[in-house]
């Protein structure tokens, strides 16, 4: 009973505990289930998710080219973004997030990419440690050479011993007369000194934190090569000295004979002069004898010279007489003889004045001649008397020197140095050759690393590693300045603005790191002194008429190289044929064998810069500098280019991109009549392109764009600013232009490239960029003077076909860039002709684009320079090289925020920074007051 009574109150408590426990378990299980559901949902969405880039402008998106490059990576690549800099001008608050976005986007596309970040010093030091290990692995054979060199440099005693040996050489020894022993001592001391200095510079190391093996191996190679040259020179000299006694013995009779003949001939002349005959007769008789003396002296000089040359430079030192070498002495003698002969001949015919006067003149000259010949004989005799002694000195070799000569035959002089030097040099060459680039100074891999070593300590860089190769993408490449710092248009603030270019910069390096260069672009230009003079002249007033040089296209060149295209030059003025194509592998280690089958050659594409132009009727007198003859560019040079394009050089046809454009007329004013005349310039490739490719480059027409006049129907206002940079991006469906459609381009000096109506070439022509059919506000104007005058006066313009203007019609668009293709003996040939003028030269690509601000008359907008223009060339090069997969477009440049002035900025700060938040507080206060009431 008691038990029952005691149990009763506990029953509900136990039930409660059980209920709680059950509820707890229930909750726990439901939470677990929910968590599991959460995980499953997220895992599934990660594997089978939908991802869409809804950007309308695409500036956070990878470009098509970058996508192709990233998708094509078949080997692991590690990308480390090193963000260590805190310098204000290199900080770039958009740099890191944009870079991260881009790299993550790349990684998302390809699992072979691994991303890492370095922010701290310890992370950087870990990275440097890892890179050092890698670098040591890459440069293993080079390091062996460096170590060998360091060992050699420590052998100072060996050099000292050799110096001592030559120091103990007897003063009366055979080689002393040549100063050889002293010279050897000096050479050896210098060698030792140079070696030690080089070794010291190796130990100094690099400031980047990575061992600078590329620089070290260069230092070692240079030092070893210099050492080898010095040793070889000494060995050669000694060898010549050793042969000198025998040579002297063989030549001495001949040499003595030559000198003797001179003496004899001289005696003959002296005898003739002193014969007592009348002066005129004596002089006359002396002439043939002087000629003989001349010949004998020449022979003696020549014999002595030949002997001296065959015996070495040092040996000829013993032939010195009166501070001149004996060959020079006899040469001088011959010259004197010739002069005297001429003088004698003239004197013999002297007929001026009376006979007495003539006799006096002749006698005076005869006496002078006698005196001179006497002195000459003394000198020659002195030489003759010294000859036996000289021959003796050159023939007699003392026993110690004989021993040196004998030893040198068994083992070359300084063999103890030259052997290790040669061994090290051979090894260093092998390390280069093993990487397939024997003609280069450094192995290709090490060349990559050289760049890494140089830039690893720069602020804010991206490091790419693939296998044992590495590359660095610098801050200024990823985040370049939007404008050229010295731009006259930009103000100070604008000069520091940067634009994100990571897509192009990183993908370009990735491409270069993972595949060999895709093609070789030959910059075809014409450069000779004449072209240079013309450049100076035309650049002053005739845009695009100047002969361009490759240096005018350095930005384009840089961009081509970043697009993994190698760039070389072909100067039509100097070279008959283009540089031969290189093997596909050349210059790069194979990292992706699938892309380099067999021994294929790297495709070549020519980028033909505009040649020098001259007005058709320009005569020699009218030429630019007043003296310059007409341009040296001729049909011969067009033929050179033609041969390359059409494969007549024994190689495959090389496709070409021609840069054409509007050629400004040469305007002159007659100073007397005031009449203006214009002369057309000639585009020298025009005829060829028209006849062989069916493309008519109308360099006489310029594209203008107008806005319909609000007051005159059918007429157009032609704003001046619009004409300097023409915004056109109406690309066709052509592979090279398609990805560029609707992007931002500004062209300069544009001319039409129309399909030639009367061409019998049979070439297929396809437009790349055109003014779409029926466009009314853009036309090609003939005689720009006509439209310029109207623009100056602010008048409207009506394009007219009667005046020669060409308009886009529904039947025929105005083509500005086109491709033509045809066959040459069954082999396909292609050209692309761009009538886009100077749109690709440095000046255009670095100057901001000035535009009238919409709705604000008289004020301007500065837009970034049209760097995107170069994408058309890059795409064209890819297209012609058969690398369509890489065709794409560079990054977009988005119009930034542009405040009208400082005043409006301050006003906005007050309204949106202070008034706007305070408005909320005000509303709250009103609400609280209302509630209280």
């Amino acid at each position, binding site marked *: 009973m008691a038990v029952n009574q005691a149990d009763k109150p506990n029953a509900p408590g136990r039930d409660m505990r059980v209920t709680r426990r059950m509820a707890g378990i229930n909750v726990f299980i439901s939470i677990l289930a929910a968590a599991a559901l959460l995980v499953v949902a997220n895992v599934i*969405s990660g594997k089978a998710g939908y991802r869409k880039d809804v950007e309308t402008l695409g*500036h956070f998106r990878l470009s098509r080219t970058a996508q192709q490059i990233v998708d094509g990576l078949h080997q692991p690549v590690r990308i480390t973004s090193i963000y260590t800099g805190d310098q204000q001008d290199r900080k770039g608050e958009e740099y890191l997030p944009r870079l991260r976005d881009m790299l993550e986007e790349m990684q998302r596309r390809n699992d072979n990419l691994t991303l890492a970040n370095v922010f701290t010093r310890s992370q950087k030091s870990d990275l440097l440690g890892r890179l050092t290990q890698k670098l040591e692995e890459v440069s293993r054979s080079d390091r062996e050479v460096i170590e060998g060199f360091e060992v050699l440099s420590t052998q100072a005693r060996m050099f000292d011993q050799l110096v001592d040996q030559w120091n103990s050489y007897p003063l009366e020894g055979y080689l002393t007369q040549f100063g050889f022993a002293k010279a050897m001592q000096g050479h050896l001391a210098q060698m030792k000194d140079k070696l030690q200095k080089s070794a010291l510079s190796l130990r100094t190391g690099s400031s980047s934190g990575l061992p600078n093996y590329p620089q070290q191996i260069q230092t070692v190679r240079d030092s070893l090569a210099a050492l080898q040259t010095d040793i070889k020179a000494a060995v050669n000299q000694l060898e010549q000295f050793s042969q000198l006694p025998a040579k002297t013995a063989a030549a001495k009779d001949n040499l003595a004979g030559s000198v003797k003949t001179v003496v004899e001939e001289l005696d003959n002349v002296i005898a003739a002069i002193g014969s007592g005959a009348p002066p005129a007769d004596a002089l006359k008789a002396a002439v043939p004898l002087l000629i003989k003396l001349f010949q004998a002296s020449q022979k003696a000089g020549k014999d002595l010279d030949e002997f001296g040359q065959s015996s070495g430079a040092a040996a000829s030192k013993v032939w010195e007489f009166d501070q001149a070498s004996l060959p020079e002495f006899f040469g001088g003698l011959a010259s004197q003889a010739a002069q005297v002969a001429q003088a004698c001949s003239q004197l013999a015919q002297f007929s001026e004045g009376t006979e007495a006067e003539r006799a006096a003149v002749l006698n005076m000259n005869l006496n002078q001649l006698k005196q001179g010949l006497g002195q000459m004989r003394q000198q020659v005799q002195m030489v003759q008397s010294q000859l036996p002694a000289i021959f003796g000195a050159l023939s007699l070799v003392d026993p110690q020197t004989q021993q040196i000569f004998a030893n040198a035959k068994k083992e070359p002089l300084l063999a103890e140095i030259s052997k290790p030097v040669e061994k090290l040099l051979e090894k260093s060459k092998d390390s280069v050759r093993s990487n397939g680039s024997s003609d280069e100074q450094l192995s290709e891999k090490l060349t990559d690393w050289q760049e890494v070593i140089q830039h690893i300590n720069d602020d804010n860089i991206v490091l790419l590693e693939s296998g044992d190769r590495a590359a660095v993408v610098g801050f200024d490449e990823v985040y370049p300045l939007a404008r050229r710092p010295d731009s006259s248009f930009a103000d100070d603030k604008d000069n520091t603005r940067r634009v994100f270019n990571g897509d192009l910069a990183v993908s370009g390096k990735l491409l270069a790191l993972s595949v060999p260069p895709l093609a070789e672009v030959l910059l075809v230009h014409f450069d000779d002194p004449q072209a240079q003079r013309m450049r100076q002249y035309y650049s002053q007033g005739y845009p695009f008429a100047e002969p361009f040089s490759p240096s005018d296209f350095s930005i384009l060149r840089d961009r081509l190289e970043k697009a993994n295209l190698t760039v070389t030059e072909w100067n039509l003025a100097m070279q008959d044929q283009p540089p031969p194509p290189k093997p596909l592998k050349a210059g790069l280690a194979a990292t992706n064998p699938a892309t380099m089958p067999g021994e294929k050659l790297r495709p070549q594409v020519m980028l033909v810069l505009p040649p020098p132009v001259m007005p058709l009727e320009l005569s020699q007198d009218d030429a630019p500098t007043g003296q310059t003859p007409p341009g040296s560019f001729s049909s011969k040079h067009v033929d050179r280019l033609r041969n390359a394009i059409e494969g007549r050089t024994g190689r495959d046809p090389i496709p070409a991109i021609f840069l054409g454009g509007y050629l400004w007329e040469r305007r002159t004013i007659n100073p007397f009549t005031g009449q203006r005349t214009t002369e057309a310039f000639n585009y020298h490739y025009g005829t060829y392109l028209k006849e062989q490719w069916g493309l008519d480059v109308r360099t006489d027409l310029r594209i203008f764009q107008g806005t319909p006049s609000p007051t005159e129907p059918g007429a157009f206002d032609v704003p001046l600013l619009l004409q300097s940079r023409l915004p056109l991006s109406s690309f066709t469906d052509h592979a090279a232009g398609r990805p560029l459609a609707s992007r931002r381009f500004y062209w300069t000096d544009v001319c039409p490239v129309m399909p030639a109506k009367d061409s019998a070439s049979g070439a297929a022509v396809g437009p790349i960029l055109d003014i779409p059919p029926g466009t009314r506000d853009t036309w090609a104007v003939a005689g720009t003077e006509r439209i310029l005058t109207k623009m100056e006066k602010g008048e409207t313009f009506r394009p007219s076909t009667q005046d020669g203007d060409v308009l886009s019609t529904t039947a025929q668009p105005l083509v500005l860039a086109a491709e033509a293709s045809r066959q040459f003996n069954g082999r396909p040939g292609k050209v692309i002709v761009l009538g886009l003028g100077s749109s690709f030269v440095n000046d255009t690509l670095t100057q901001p684009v000035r535009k009238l601000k919409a709705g604000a008359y008289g004020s301007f907008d500065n837009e970034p320079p049209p760097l995107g223009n170069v994408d058309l060339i890059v795409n064209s090069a890819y297209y012609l090289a058969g690398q369509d997969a890489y065709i794409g477009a560079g990054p977009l440049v988005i*119009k*930034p925020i542009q405040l009208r002035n400082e005043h409006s900025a301050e006003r906005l700060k007050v309204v949106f920074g202070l008034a706007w938040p305070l408005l909320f507080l005000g509303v709250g206060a009103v609400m609280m007051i209302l509630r209280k009431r």
Partner: protein
Amino acid sequence: MSKILTLARRELAAYFFSPMAYVIAAMFLGGVGLLFLWGLKIPFLRIDYEPLFRNGAEATLRPLFDVLAYGLAIVCPLLTMRSVAEEFRAGTIETLMTAPITDAQVILGKFLGAMGLYLVLLASTLAYFALIVIYGSPDYGVAVMGYLGMVLLGAVFIAVGIFSSTLTRHQLVAGLVGIAILGFFTMGVYLLVMLLPETAEIINRLNMIRYFGDFSKGVFDTQGLIFFVSVTAFFLFLSTKVLESRRWR
């Protein structure tokens, strides 16, 4: 549903009938305006943000959203800290629990109420976007996705805030717990990745900012959408369970 909306309306009204909503809104907009128009420089913390709205800057709100994402990890728990904790403290929770509504409806109502306030705050930043439209050429796709990301991120943060508010009767503690949880999901994951780099891939999946980053750069990704929705739902579920536990604890 109507009960949830009624509760949400009541919650929202409660925010606006108290000075808190206005003070928070003013502070929020003040902060945004500071970043947007003046920038922020705190040298000893190495914080150096140039004004986003300046000549030559990119016409986008993205950098603002990126900073706000971290700021919200503090603002949202402060916004929601009182939502349930205050009911506990004032004892009104008993009344609420005896009312004919479920715990889930209570939580959802409070969540929607807080979301309402959050959306008003977010909408107020449209004024800054309007400035960018007037003075630049922004990418509308990026802007739309940025706002979507902010809404989704705010939803998660508010759900976490409400959850932390259900854990205690003390508002401040609730706020701190919420900040701690969100601190882990926003910044803690970075530390964790540094400590355990080999598990980086898994840890990164917990990184809310990473998912938000896709939206802020104009990418619509169902992975991020599902993450935000599922995590929001999970924390609301947890909040419901915690609230429910009062019945049997």
